């Protein structure tokens, strides 16, 4: 027998407080979590609400947190979870408001997607026939194309958890689908918008989205690609861009990052005007923990220069 524990919530029951309900079930080998939720709903408790449709991991309806990690219920083996954790724990997706039991309000999710203008924009003249694009060009956006909007990435996104205004991995992966598509010619405008606060620079690179996506989409990789493209387009005024460039500059100078210089260049005036930062600076100095602002270049720094030059030369050649 396996214990199934499920999050229950109904604003009109139990004073609007959620509770957990458990069932002891005999689960056959090969059954998915969706199979057992169906069994409970059909034959034990019809009041249990959850979204589902295709039962083949393509419609994205059944995104849930299973034993604390966002997954699809239809392609997760129940007994695997029971073996690892001693029970199958089913909860709604994170970062989204539960409406009833496992059903969450997907409104904010869709709004984030809408906010990136998720459709092809081609302001120039359309070609007579097909757009001339090669396999290699289309392959660039492969990491972003198969999104089924299940919400697993947003559920476990630590940036979204701390900052509900962050656009989030699904929306930004969708954005990359167009930024990386040669048929879309609004690249610069898009990158400018995505470089604003709560966009590409607000991702904390925690890798949850890459890890939990059931379709193999790599939202974080898409975000990082867009960062590089934004910098290439000269969009350097965003705070995140400043920080990355400051870090990079010091590494190029000395081979290792110069923590003090990076902080100063990145924060600019705030380094001396923000009380909390000044406090940290003082206390690290007192403890002897302050990083050295006059870092000497590593041995072999000439190698770094040569490699930089070599890459620059290759790029110039390929641009010609």
């Amino acid at each position, binding site marked *: 027998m396996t214990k199934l524990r499920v999050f229950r919530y109904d604003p009109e029951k139990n004073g609007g407080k959620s509770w957990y309900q458990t069932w002891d079930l005999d689960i056959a080998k090969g059954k998915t979590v969706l199979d057992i939720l169906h069994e409970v709903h059909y034959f034990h408790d019809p009041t249990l*609400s959850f979204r589902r449709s295709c039962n083949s991991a393509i419609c994205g309806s059944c995104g849930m947190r299973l034993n604390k990690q966002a997954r699809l219920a239809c392609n997760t083996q129940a007994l695997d979870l029971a073996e690892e954790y001693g029970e199958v724990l089913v909860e709604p997706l994170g970062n989204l408001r539960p409406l009833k039991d496992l059903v969450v309000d997907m409104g904010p999710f869709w709004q984030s997607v809408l906010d990136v*203008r998720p459709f092809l924009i081609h302001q120039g003249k359309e070609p007579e026939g097909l757009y001339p694009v090669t396999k290699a060009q289309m392959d660039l*956006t492969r990491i972003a194309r198969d999104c089924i909007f299940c919400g697993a990435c947003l559920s476990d996104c630590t940036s979204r958890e701390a900052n509900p205004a962050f656009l989030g991995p699904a929306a930004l992966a969708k954005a990359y689908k167009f930024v990386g598509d040669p048929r879309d010619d609004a690249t610069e405008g898009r990158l400018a918008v995505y470089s604003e606060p709560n966009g590409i620079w607000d991702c904390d690179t925690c890798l949850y989205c890459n890890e939990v996506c059931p379709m193999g989409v790599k939202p974080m990789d898409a975000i990082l690609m867009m960062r590089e493209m934004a910098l290439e*387009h000269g969009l350097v005024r965003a705070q995140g861009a400043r920080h990355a460039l400051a870090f990079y500059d010091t590494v190029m100078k000395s081979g290792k990052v110069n923590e003090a210089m990076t902080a100063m260049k990145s924060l600019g005036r705030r380094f001396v005007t923000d009380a909390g930062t000044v406090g940290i600076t003082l206390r690290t100095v007192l403890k002897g923990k302050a990083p050295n602002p006059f870092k000497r270049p590593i041995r072999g720094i000439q190698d770094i220069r040569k490699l930089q030059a070599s890459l620059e030369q290759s790029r110039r050649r390929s641009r010609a």
Partner: protein
Amino acid sequence: MRECHLENLPEQPSRCNLQGFNNGARFPRAPMGKHDVIVIGGGLAGASAALEARARGADVAIVTKLHPARSHSVAAMGGINAALEEGDSWEGHAFDTVKGSDYLADQDAVEIVCRAAKETILRMEHWGTPFSRDEHGKMAHRPFGGHGMPRAYFAGDRTGLALMQTSLEQLFRAGITVYDEHMAVELAVHQDTFHGVVALNVPTGEVVPIPAKAGVLCTGPAGRMYSKTTNAVTCTGDGLALVLRAGGALKDMEFVQFHPTTLHGPNVLITEAARGDGGIMLNAKGERFMERYAPKLLDLAPRDIASRAIQTEVNEGRGFPGGYVHLDLTMMGEEKIRERLPEVWEFSEKFAGVNPAKESIPIEPGQHYIMGGVATDSQGATTIRGLWAAGECACVSLHGSNRLGGNALLECLVYGKITGGHAADYARKAPEPPPLSDPLTAAVKKVEGLRKAVGGENPQSLKLEMGEAMTAGVGVFRDEAGMRNALTAVRQIRKRSGGVRVGDAGQRFNYALVEALELENLVDLAEVIAYGALLRRESRGAHFRTDFPKRDDAGWLKHTLATRRGDEFEIAYEPVRITMFPPKERTY
């Protein structure tokens, strides 16, 4: 360093109105706003209809019991057909389609679709669909069962997802209103004219009238009356049942397609493209048995022939215990399988624990598509004025008695656009719809009656019984006795379905209530299928009878029409529209 100009970016589209959540407000019976056109169903056909209606200036809204992104269109895998290559022609595509239909397709509809294929693919590509390309930038295409030439264009093996994504993106761009999680429970039809729908708002439990001057039904598949089906749980043919109740007609419902390769157990679809890319089917003796059934096309024979071949192998004892055969992809190697058929890889591992590069995949036929549907003319118009139908829920008829792979996605896009356009044009001259008080009352009575019922049977038990009866009696192989049994069983179940117990009296997200409403639709359709099948005394396309194994054009080159009279169904017939290709024997 280039300057960035934010004003270059087009206007932010208006928010896609996701109307589902009223946060506790109860029963506001006021209309949800009037629309010129409503599209019932938000999948590929529905989105296409809505976009075209909007393009023609109509105020259009989509009413869907899911959300467009969740529609079953996303499950379509292998490809969409068009005659784009040198040496191919729309006539060639049309001929293959008509032959594949076993000459039951209405050829004017076939011509419309095959002629429109090229511009359809172009439109979708221009909207950004990531069709697979080769190294030279040409769109990649693959062979598909029953076609003389390779003409299926694809996006990995997730073509349906890619096309639906693009359609959804265009819905976002156009800012089209979507009433998501609204299940249509009643068509408002007065004096044979459509005036709107009444829908159950699933998030809040309210029953709301949605009046409109014109409508397009795009409710998709209806295969959930079978126990082994690739269809989503939500594919319950709601639009078909609604049309029957409103006095319309269904056409050719007995023609049910069984996909030969569904994964034994969960019945997830293993795409035909796996065979297109080199996979072969083997029985328990290791024989490539298709050599006996389709010597020229072998494993790429049309689906009905392939399904019957597998079932025969199983019935005659050459299948594996459990009733399945093997699909062998091992010769492709891991890298090629992961590259060309990533989903097949996923399914085999997560749903069957099988590594397709090392072992064969266990497959069996499963219900997959219904060629029949709401009867329409060649422009998609139903017999109800102001109401059109498109996609799988319609029977134009494009597919006749058997559908070829790659034509379903094409049908959705082509007929979605055609019907959306007609609905918009009609709405421009149509009068304002009257208040929907009668249909609203009927709908509230039905919904509240179900919600409050105590005692009675569990609808899920009835559904299981129906599924077994249909699979056994109206499946890949049919005969008189089997179909009679199925029909009797289904009629009994229909009676019993009047008194089910829902078991959830709640307002919000009451899926037990939704399932009971869906069951009511399914039992009607199951009876129509069984009845039509029993009466048709021939074999044609997907309808194969051991007692009448030959095609009989003299007696049966005609469409079955089903209508509802009170609590029973009546069957009539109408001729097939033959304009290009006179019927011939169908061999491959």
